[in-house]
């Protein structure tokens, strides 16, 4: 016996209210709970759906919530692994060299103070990039809340902090050899940020392809 659309919606709302907010995690739990209830009905349980559901949740809710917590760890792992893969691809040295040359060119053509002011916008680039992607996918493409998409905020925060550290270091830099360290640090921070944006685009695309056609 199959559950109705209303029954499925009830399970979904219940899990959503139990703090399982990400759709990709919840949909799998909804299917698991629904399959369990359907099996009980097929085995001859003639009680109303709500009574079977209540008993099922009393027995299994703690395990489902534990699954939710572990899923988020997997989502984080997936992001960092994708980022590490990007770091060993040929695009990494290319981006790093291009950033270094770009900063070097800027430094040669601007005074040190103006150069420092110009590069002070770098930390914001990553955050703006992430926000733009998030708005496009959630508002324009109407994608729901997905775990890996929202967990991307953490590595973006790390990249923001990286560039802030480099900029704090820049305050102590005077003309001379130290400017090379500053340019190197900025190039590394910018490369990390650009690779993160690349990883984010891939993750957004994966979720869009996986879930959009069947919503």
């Amino acid at each position, binding site marked *: 016996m199959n559950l109705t659309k209303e029954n499925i919606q009830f399970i979904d709302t219940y899990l959503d209210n139990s703090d399982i907010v990400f759709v990709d995690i919840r949909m799998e739990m909804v*299917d698991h709970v629904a399959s369990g209830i359907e099996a009980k009905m097929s085995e001859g349980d003639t009680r109303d759906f709500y009574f079977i559901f209540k008993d099922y949740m009393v027995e*299994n809710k703690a395990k489902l919530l534990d699954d939710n917590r572990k899923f988020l760890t997997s989502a984080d792992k997936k992001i960092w692994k994708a980022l590490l893969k990007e770091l060993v691809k040929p695009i990494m040295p290319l981006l790093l060299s291009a950033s270094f040359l770009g900063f070097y060119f800027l430094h040669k053509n601007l005074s040190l103070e103006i150069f420092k002011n110009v590069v002070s916008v770098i930390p914001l680039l990553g955050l703006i990039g992430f926000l733009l992607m998030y708005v496009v996918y959630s508002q324009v493409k109407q994608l729901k809340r997905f775990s890996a998409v929202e967990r991307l905020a953490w590595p973006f925060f790390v990249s923001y902090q990286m560039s802030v550290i480099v900029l704090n270091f820049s305050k102590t830099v005077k003309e001379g050899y130290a400017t090379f360290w500053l340019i190197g640090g900025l190039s590394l921070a910018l490369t990390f940020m650009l690779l993160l944006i690349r990883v984010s685009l891939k993750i957004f695309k994966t979720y869009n392809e996986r879930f959009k056609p069947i919503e």
Partner: protein
Amino acid sequence: MYGYEMTQKVKALTKGELNITEGALYPALHKLEAEGLLDVEVAKVDNRLRKYYKLTEQGTKETVSKLEELAEYIKTMQSLVNPKLA
């Protein structure tokens, strides 16, 4: 295969001896997916979305290797517990 189907299959194959809970199964599946050993497909079935898992090429190779490791381990344990069987 999907999650619930796996729990039922394991139960049936082991005649109820092994009962995999959702709290153990799904984190393991998600970990294997994150490691690139499993591939995922989502389909709409009976008014809801269902996630199907299948082994990737790397996953198939890893399974063979892990099964060989397990067989070797069991053989070693047998030789320790009962030298006549080894």
